């Protein structure tokens, strides 16, 4: 069961990396969050902890329902937000992603020594983090940056919950709240940026250099 979930997370991350347009990216993010929710649910049922149910629920509401909706709505309001602005084309991105996968596998096996289940989880989680950073670097628009951040957060959540049995409850709640508020704010600001500059291309910031 666990390996299926990990496999699905991996696939969804690849989908994110090769996405050409923003709705595709958001859809893949949704899949990833859903798999994450499923994994947390499985653990919650296995451990029978109330807190984990709450966490899983929050995960579902926030990352599978609310945030993608918010992002879709933002896209609709902005006219030219569908274009993701790729620095590297999807095929090369996929190669990069494969490289990152290998790297994270190396790191994970180096860390844990053997090649058991924990290594797989560590590798996938770490790969998710790397993919998030990749999205932030190699995609031009501000929306991609937001989503990259969210993906990184996903990866860390996966790492924490599966390797060390989850973070303390309050920390989880706090993180969720953080993510919620930040995405709210960022969505709003992206709209404002677009209104003022008529684009959300972050690369154009280099015009401000002295």
């Amino acid at each position, binding site marked *: 069961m666990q390996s299926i979930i990990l496999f699905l997370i991996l696939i969804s991350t690849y989908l994110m990396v090769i996405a050409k347009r923003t709705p595709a990216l958001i859809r893949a993010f949704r899949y990833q969050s859903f798999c994450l929710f499923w994994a947390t649910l499985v653990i919650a049922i296995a451990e029978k902890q109330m807190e984990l149910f709450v966490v899983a629920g929050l995960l579902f509401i926030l990352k599978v329902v609310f945030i993608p909706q918010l992002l879709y709505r933002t896209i609709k309001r902005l006219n030219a937000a569908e274009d993701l602005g790729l620095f590297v084309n999807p095929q090369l991105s996929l190669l990069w992603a494969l490289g990152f996968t290998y*790297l994270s596998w190396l790191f994970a096996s*180096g860390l844990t020594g053997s090649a058991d289940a924990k290594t797989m989880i560590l590798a996938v989680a770490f790969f998710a983090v790397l993919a998030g*950073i990749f999205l*932030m*670097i190699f995609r031009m628009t501000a929306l991609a*940056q937001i989503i990259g951040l969210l993906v990184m957060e996903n990866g860390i959540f996966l790492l924490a919950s599966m390797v060390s049995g989850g973070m303390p409850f309050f920390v989880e709640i706090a993180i969720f709240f953080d993510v919620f508020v930040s995405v709210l704010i960022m969505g709003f600001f992206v709209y404002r940026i677009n209104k003022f500059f008529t684009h959300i291309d972050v690369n154009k*910031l*280099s015009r*401000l*250099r002295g």
Partner: protein
Amino acid sequence: MLELLSKQFFFFDPLSLFFLLVIGIVSLPCAVYSLGYLRGEYSRPKIIFSRILLAVFILSMAAVVTAGNLLVFLVAWESMSLVSYFFVIFDTTHERSIRAGTIYIVMTHIGTAFLVAGFMLFYKYAHAFDFISIRNACFIMPSPVKNTIFILFLIGFGTKAGIVPLHIWLPYAHPQAPSHISSLMSGVMIKTAVYALVRFVIFILGVDSPWWGILILLLAVSSCLVGVIYALMERDIKRLLAYSSVENMGIILLGIGLAMLFIAARMPYLAVFSLIAGLYHLINHAIFKGLLFLGAGSVYKATGTRDIEKLGGLIKKMPQTAFCFLIGSLAISALPPLNGFVSEWLTLQAFFIGALNSAGGTKLFLGICAGLLALTSGLAAACFVKAFGIVFLGLPRSNYAQGAGEAPLSMRAGMFFLSLLAVIFGLASGYIINLLAATAAAVLDVDISGMRFALNNLVLTPQTARSIYLNVPLLALALAGTAALGWIAHRLFCKFKPVIYNTWDCGYYKIGARNQYSGTAFSKPFRIAFSFFLLPYRKTQKIRESFYHVKSFAYETHTTFVFKKYVYLPLIALVLKGAKSMRRIQPGSIHLYLGYIFSALLLLLIFMNKF
């Protein structure tokens, strides 16, 4: 508890006490002087602020010379530099002040960086911060480390002391500060750098190699000559005095360098003698340079200008200030029976006796250095004939000088106090030399009971063949006596009263202030003689009404500032070019910055993987 703390942080030995004396005798008249000087120049809150700053400044200088701990020293050093920076930019209305302040603060911090590096090396070997432990550790320090520390300290403290080629901030910063601060900076602050050199290099580090002394001698001789030649060319009084400070710092360092040379050559008595000469010139310079700056400040306050080409005839309008400035000029030109004469004589004697006791090459080197010292003293006398003569004597050259009045009492009191000290330090030189001998012996750990320094007899131990003699009061008596004889010859049976008439004008009847020699004209022979170094150039501009009729002709003559042009500007250009090429890693793109973070993270992980 307090005593334990004070033992840990402060260190009182004869050298520190001597420097406290220097600080004290110059700070007192400067503070009194500032009462009259600041009134009317700045607003009341600013004056109160300047008084607070002055107190902090004097306290920080006192802390520098009494610090017993590297950290206390650094804190005091930094606060001294910062407070003096605030003073340099005190006159914020002038753009020159801000520029001078920038140059000053950058250079002083470069120096501080070097000395922090030296301190870090100290800590590495001593694992303690206080001076005694470091001194013990330095006995067993390997020689290359000692050499490195010496070079670091030389650059670090040399920047503050104003040794060529690190002197470039002095002529900018000292003129811009208020005059009592200029005199404190020039009289005391740059001396603390000499204190630090003596303390850290001679006392703590311990001199082993002779090339240290020779390097300092070379730098000192070049400071002397460069300083005095530029001073001769200046037309701003305070800049002239600032360059003259560079020259006198060179003379002080001649004494210190000689002391280092003799310590390394295992001639402790000669080292004591040279150190006495250096320290004597130090306190003398503090006195007469302080006096000269206060005098220049009075002139500035009375006339509103520092340009000597616009002054003249001030001796009639400010007689007491002129008298004090004259005493200062006489002292700095090393004329008997004032204090400058004694210290220069001592330095020359230190060179001579040292040469007598050295081997071949060093002998000639010391002799030539002594000759160059004599050259600078002659040039300094010429410089101050120019300074005093053009500013105070003759006819007023402009309206600035016409409207001058005597300085207020507080300013005059400060100047008189320092003039009195100049005379006392000259006449009581025997007594002062005894005090200095005790100080120098304490620094160098030498037993000087075999040497006798008395009022009329300096006897050194068997290392010299004969005794050397100087008796300043007797000389003063002889000078006064023969001058009295001259006066008697003048007035005895004289039936005539002097007739007051115009100066001889060759028959022209329109002789006026424009016919006098100007300062630039006075120093023209020097400009030509030293043109290989000064590289003078001129700019002329003719305005013609027609081809044959020239309506006006403007003539400017300049000297090139070699250090600024050939050393500093290329260096600054290089640094800026490097910075510009470094700027290319910052194109403003967020993605690139994130990429930097990312790659750093990846590299770290790969590294961690390996290990």
